[in-house]
């Protein structure tokens, strides 16, 4: 579990992070979102003990980041924005070095290195010099390095940057598979990534918290209306009044070759509509939920500044 309370970091007179508070539950994957220079990297650096904060409190698995820094470092794996690689070493040598400084006991070292190589798919390149392997493999070495001591907490700064689409999917699967045993916080610019693998998000801008919570919580609290888009074989105007007459429905619009039906977020009448369609034999072609998606959420939060 990661808890941050009123965290502030100043560089000179500049606030990199200002009065930031959020919570990441144990075993969950949490995304840290925000525009460039929002303070994402600074927040992660503070959580890993790389940078001290100017003010505030942060605890990781119950350890105070500023008081028990060494304990925090032992249980945290960190992939920085720029992967910290010693390019004159081979992949295996490098991981051996990381295993040493992460204080893995000598009898478990070999196993830990083997496991991290296997998980990150580095078997092919493990005897090659890091300077000679491709960008994607370097990124994987970064992930292997963060995972090597099987940390409870994983902090990943843009883990999929610089990878090709197939590799991105692999890395996402890898991160998802680590869920449960590990508490993961990752920063990213790719919003689709958040919906695919994250349980919740923290959105920050200008170093300040804009929103945080699980995805469902956030989307439902930010939308006033829920709705569906529905496409039918029959498409006469008379259907407009038919849908309007369903109890709870607030608006019905024509959209493209179908209808958009909206109702208040306090109830869910999807099944009522479905039954209606079936009972009246309207010939259902397509029906999809029109809840707020992550892009809408992000843009709304960044521009609006709603705090949750």
């Amino acid at each position: 579990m990661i808890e941050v309370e009123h965290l502030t970091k100043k560089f000179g007179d500049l606030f990199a992070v200002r009065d930031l508070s959020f919570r990441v539950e144990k075993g969950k994957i949490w995304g840290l979102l925000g525009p460039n220079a929002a303070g994402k990297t600074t927040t992660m650096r503070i959580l890993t003990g790389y940078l001290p904060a100017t003010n505030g409190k942060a605890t990781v698995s119950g350890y105070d980041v500023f008081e028990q820094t060494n304990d925090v470092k032992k249980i945290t794996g960190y992939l920085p924005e720029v992967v910290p690689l010693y390019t004159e070493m081979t992949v295996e040598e490098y991981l051996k070095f990381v295993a040493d400084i992460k204080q893995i006991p000598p009898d478990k070292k070999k196993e830990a290195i083997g496991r991290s190589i296997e998980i990150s798919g580095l078997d092919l390149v493990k005897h090659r010099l890091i300077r000679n392997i491709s960008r994607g493999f370097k990124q994987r070495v970064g992930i292997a390095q963060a995972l090597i001591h099987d940390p409870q907490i994983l902090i990943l700064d843009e883990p999929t940057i610089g990878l090709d689409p197939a590799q991105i999917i692999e890395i996402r699967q890898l991160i998802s598979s680590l869920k449960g045993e590990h508490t993961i916080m990752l920063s990213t610019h790719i919003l689709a990534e958040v919906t695919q693998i994250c349980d919740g998000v923290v959105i920050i801008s200008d170093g300040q918290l804009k929103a945080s919570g699980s995805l469902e919580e956030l989307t439902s609290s930010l939308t006033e209306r829920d709705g569906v888009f529905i496409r039918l074989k029959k498409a006469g105007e008379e259907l407009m009044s038919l849908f309007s007459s369903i109890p709870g429905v607030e608006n019905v619009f024509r959209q493209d070759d179908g209808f958009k039906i909206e109702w208040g977020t306090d109830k869910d009448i999807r099944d009522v509509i479905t039954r209606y369609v079936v009972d009246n034999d309207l010939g259902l072609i397509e029906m999809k939920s029109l809840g707020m998606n992550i892009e809408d959420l992000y843009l709304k939060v960044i521009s609006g500044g709603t705090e949750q």
Partner: protein
Amino acid sequence: MNNIWAICKREIKTYFTSPIAYVAITVFLIVTGFFFYTLIQWFNLQSMQMARNPQYYQQLNINQMVYAPLFHNISIILLFLVPILTMRLFAEEKKSKTEELLYTSPVSISQIILGKYFASLLVLLVMLFLNSLLSVFVFAFGNPEVLPLLSGYLGLFLMGAAFMALGIFFSSLTENQIVAASLGFGFFLLFFVLNWASQFAGGIWRSVLNYLSFFQHFDDMTRGILDTTDIVYYLSLIFFGLFLTHSVIQSRRWR
């Protein structure tokens, strides 16, 4: 202890998998070997000339005539080479952002500094050891005194170790290796010749400048005089250099 060893091991590997250590050691051996050769030749010549004059012949001393100047020459070469050996140690970590790995691992700053320092000392030891092998010839064909020789090498080692500690400090100041090397080189040279100014300084300044100069403390050792003042001087320089490095790294992270 394990942490220091882990850091040290990696640095040693870097020294010896890249050309740095090989080039530095080779240059060092060629130049010092040349000095040694010319000094021995000169000593030879002197011996032959003085063989005709028994009174002077008594005064021939290989320690005084070959080793003392040799040690002085080696100290000058160290002054050039040490900044090159230390410039990488922290500057490169900073530039390539690998320091982020070190500072987020359960390793203390002191352990990182000591690990790197010991690795640089090892290179120094290798250089001095290989150089000392030249003396095999001197022992085979002559009989130099052993103690002044040992104290001379000890002096070289202590001076090199102090250079290394200060060089690491300069490396921690910047992410540019050339800047680190230039600072080190300039500083060492200045402190080497600081005693020159003592001739013009009066009173307490004369002794202060003399005390601070590298040269003054080294000179005794080349002649076989081991004084605790000199050893304390070098040890405090080493401590000072490493302590400053620690402060720089600590303060940089708090800024």
